[in-house]
């Protein structure tokens, strides 16, 4: 396939922004935006393109975090191998859970995914000897022979290529024939079936791919924090990533990264206020309500509109007086 000019430009902008980001904001926050952005993209792949709202994606983010941490700390795996182990773990888990969850549709599917994620939360809490229970899985090393990945900035640049591969994978999936079939299933499943597509199979594959991307994000995040915790598996995590996705705009893919960036910077900005530190839900919940009531399109389409209108005005401006 010949890459179009447009997709080359997208890739160039992405790489440039990725490299510049930790120079603008501090590296720990930059890595968080990178990882949560990919996580939100994974959710958007399923929700925006497949019409399936998973409220249990914390399961894949968290399990990948634990698996990657385990591989790095107990098996001494260098960081890319640890991340891949996390991705494999998340994908393997998504096969049975996705199969079961997809036996229901619509809002029932959402409830089932939420319930399964909660089950994993319990299991991780009970497996204290392995997961560390409420103390979390601590002291995860991140190593790569020949390189020192200690400082946050170094790890950011080490993580960047892997995350970018994740972004590109999501972009490729959505723009492939597979992605188009997925959208057609979202819009009218019966018609897609009538056209001969095994829709159940497509949905399951989309679910597993989405879980694998969420796992990639979670593994990078856990290695970045050097810590995998029960919080990664908690239902609030599932909610937070859906919030970022909707905030960015459903079905836009890049909106997920924008949503993650805006949300995390807002949180960073507000973390100096007592209210937010003690009760973050007050702000998160309010943002949720505002988005659902008044900003359902999300930021990405709104911003794109503004840019388009501004550029049109700029073109027309010389003709006008003042």
């Amino acid at each position, binding site marked *: 396939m010949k890459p179009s000019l447009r997709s080359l430009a997208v890739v160039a902008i992405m790489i440039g922004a990725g490299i510049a980001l930790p120079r603008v904001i501090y590296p720990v926050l930059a890595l968080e935006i990178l990882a949560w952005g990919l996580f939100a993209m994974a959710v958007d792949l399923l929700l925006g393109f497949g019409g399936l709202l998973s409220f249990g994606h914390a399961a894949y983010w968290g399990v990948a975090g634990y698996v990657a941490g385990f591989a790095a700390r107990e098996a001494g795996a260098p960081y890319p191998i640890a991340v891949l182990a996390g991705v494999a773990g998340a994908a393997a888990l998504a096969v049975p859970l996705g199969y079961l969850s997809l036996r229901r549709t619509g809002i029932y599917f959402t*409830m089932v995914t939420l319930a399964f994620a909660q*089950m994993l939360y319990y299991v991780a809490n009970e497996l204290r000897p392995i997961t560390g229970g409420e103390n979390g899985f601590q002291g995860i090393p991140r190593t790569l022979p020949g390189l020192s990945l200690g400082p946050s900035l170094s790890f950011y640049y080490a993580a960047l290529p892997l995350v970018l591969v994740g972004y590109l994978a999501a972009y490729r999936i959505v723009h492939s024939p597979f992605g188009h079939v997925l959208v057609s299933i979202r819009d009218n499943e019966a018609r897609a079936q009538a056209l001969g597509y095994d829709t159940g199979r497509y949905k399951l594959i989309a679910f597993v791919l989405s879980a694998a991307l969420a796992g990639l994000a979670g593994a990078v995040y856990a290695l970045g924090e050097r810590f995998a915790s029960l919080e990664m598996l908690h239902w609030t995590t599932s*909610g937070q990533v859906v919030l970022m996705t909707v905030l960015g705009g459903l079905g836009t893919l890049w909106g997920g990264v924008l949503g993650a960036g805006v949300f995390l910077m807002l949180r960073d900005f507000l973390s100096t206020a007592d209210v937010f530190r003690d009760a973050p839900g007050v702000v998160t919940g309010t943002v*949720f*309500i505002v988005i659902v*009531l008044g900003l359902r399109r999300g930021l990405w389409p709104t911003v794109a509109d503004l840019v388009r209108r501004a550029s049109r005005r700029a073109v027309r401006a010389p003709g006008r007086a003042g």
Partner: protein
Amino acid sequence: MDYLAVQLFNGLVNGSYYALLSLGLAVIFGMMRVVNFAHGAFYMLGAFIAYALLQQAGIGFWPSLVIAPLVIAAAGMLLERVLLRRLTGLDPLYGFLFTFGLTLLIQDAMRLRFGLQGQPYPTPGELAGTVAFGSVTYPVYRLFVVGFCLAASVAVWFVIERTRLGMVVRAATERADLTRAFGVDVDRWVTPMFGFGLALAALAGVLAAPMRNVSPLMGSELIILTFAVVVIGGMGSIAGAIVAGFLVGALSSVIAIFDPAVEGIVAFALMAVLLLVRPSGLFGSVETR
């Protein structure tokens, strides 16, 4: 054997709460196609209202059992009228996300005010103490909870399945447009039914206060378990909600005899099995989107 009986009863007590909560969820979902994530938060608020009434005004358990559901129902109807109504006709996921945000807001606002420390609530004097069955003794209050919830559940079931009012509600649930065409003002029933569903949650909250500590997070994990119960029972099925509630409660406690660690996952495992063999739930029929 005695231990088994006690555990079975403990399970039925837990099941009472599941039943009452999933019943409220089913009523709300049936009427408005909204999966009310905030159900657990309103359950918690019900308990807190009882606690506040006792602390601030010296009003005890019995009046609270009436006042708290009424207050929550009123607040809920206002919420439905002012905000939730704007989401009518949209994909159900927006209602879900809205109530999710509401949950975070309510929960953390309460946490800011009361902290995470649970507040004790005394068992009402009339129901204190234990009662003996042969060699087994059991707290009176817990028996009361099972009896009360069972009676309340059956009453709701009766109203919805066997009365004229229930007929209107069921018709509106299944075919809102057709019901309108028969001249029934469906929209008039949406607000009160939402209030009624929340009142059931608040009722469960007041009942829980003497047994569990009153704390801001008391509803957060219960709600997800209740979702599993609802999937097991079949969403929108009143009888399914009641039966699945008691079933999950009893089964979890009995299995906990063999291994306490797995008690928390019984409901989810049962849900997984049911999804395999009977995806629409115990009492569910045709999938409604």
